[in-house]
């Protein structure tokens, strides 16, 4: 019986889809059977980031409305030996085409066949959010170190904490720009974490390679040499229960290094 993890944020454009794609990829690289579920109905793009757009025949709404069986709608990622699948969102319907109970039933069914179900959540706190969270066992909240994104993350965490079936959410801080953080022009990792007071499960630098990789339909986690890739792989390892120290953002900066060490000390 697998576990379902919802990736959410409140605010749009902070990296939910990128995080979902890369965590899924990294878990598959670790040999887990993974199913990615795109719940951003009407604005699907997890398929594009994964490079699987051309292979879509049926979608989530087709499954829920009984037009096809689940296995017919799942798109297999050929780069992995039977490890990674995608259930794409519908592009034509809207979010109200699916109800939370239907979603939960679907996720429960997928949990029979997969180790991890990664659910990519739409922005906002309305029905799309409720659908995405309905079947989840765990939650990852993605934020950037910007005041507005952190504010929305706080709102979402408040909602997630009310979900009885979801474990306390974990935080990913994405798109960290080291020079801004160092100059105090951006919230630092410490400030964001203490403000939100939830466990940190990963920090990801802002990296042009992420955008390039997404545009080529090759999630960055497939590239072993990029810093962002290692960050996503580390998140996957932490999901699997390993204790992995946080990445050093800038090797030349002793202040940051001690900060990160302190973090690790606190969390391990």
């Amino acid at each position, binding site marked *: 019986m697998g576990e379902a993890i919802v990736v959410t944020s409140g605010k749009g454009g902070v990296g939910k889809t990128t995080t979902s794609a890369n965590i899924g990829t990294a878990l598959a690289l670790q040999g887990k059977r993974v199913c990615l579920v795109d719940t951003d109905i009407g604005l699907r793009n997890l398929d594009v980031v994964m490079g699987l757009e051309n292979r879509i025949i049926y979608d989530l709404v087709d499954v829920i409305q009984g037009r096809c069986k689940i296995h017919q709608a799942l798109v297999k990622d050929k780069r992995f030996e039977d490890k990674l699948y995608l259930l794409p969102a519908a592009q034509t319907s809207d979010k109200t085409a699916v109800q939370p109970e239907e979603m939960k039933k679907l996720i429960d069914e997928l949990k029979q066949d997969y180790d991890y179900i990664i659910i990519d959540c739409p922005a906002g706190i309305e029905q799309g959010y409720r659908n995405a969270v309905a079947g989840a066992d765990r939650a990852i909240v993605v934020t950037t170190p910007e005041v507005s994104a952190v504010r929305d993350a*706080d*709102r979402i*965490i*408040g909602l997630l904490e009310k979900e009885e079936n979801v474990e306390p959410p974990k935080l990913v801080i994405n798109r960290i720009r080291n020079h801004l953080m160092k100059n105090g022009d951006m919230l630092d990792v410490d400030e964001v974490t203490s*403000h939100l007071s939830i466990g940190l499960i990963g920090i990801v630098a802002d990296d042009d390679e992420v955008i390039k990789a997404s545009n080529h339909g090759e999630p960055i986690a497939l590239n072993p040499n990029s810093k962002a890739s290692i960050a996503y792989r580390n998140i996957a390892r932490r999901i699997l229960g390993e204790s992995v120290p946080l990445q050093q953002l800038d090797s030349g900066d002793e202040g940051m290094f001690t900060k990160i060490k302190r973090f690790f000390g606190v969390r391990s």
Partner: protein
Amino acid sequence: MKNTQNVTIKGTKDGLTLHLDDTCSYEELKKELDRKLANTSKAQEEDRLLTVKVKVGNRYLSHGQQEELKDLIRQKRNLLVDVIETNVMTIAEAEELRQENEIVSVARIVRSGQVLEITGDLLLIGDVNPGGTVKASGNVFVMGSLKGIAHAGCNGNEQAVIGASSMKPSQLRIAGCISRAPDQLPNEDGKAMECAYISEDQQIVIDRLQTLMKIRPNLTRFEGGR
């Protein structure tokens, strides 16, 4: 006619006190009150407005009955009811009083979009994040940082205060007074252990926590001891 006095009037230097017997019926009481007061107002021909205190002993008076008695007494030209004192209250009123005087401790973070509202004093073991609101009919004490909105005395108690370990609110409200955060916080580190209260000129003032013991001595509930 019975000889027992259901209504007795006593004069003190602060005004009149009406003692209303608590064993007779309410109707009987009203009748006698009417008769007695008719006599007195004839006796006292002064124009000065007199305040009266009404003591009703162990009689329970509903809100409507209290108003009725006040009206009855007010109809007598120069009498104005100051208070009605009674020894009894309903269980509901007692429960309300108990809640008003209770300190409710809550251990959590009040996050953006959340509202925590309680009756009595609030002791929050945690933070109020920006966009979050805490409300109490009494005082608000935040042991973490107060970064959102705090409303003390939300039913109108202007004596209520707000205290926080770290005072960086977006807005403070006490009873009907509102103060918004200054656009520029003067000194980040100076914001530890502060309180807010309504000053004599009806403004919300932020001050060191230690000021409270001087300006709000009633915050101390501890009685007796050494």
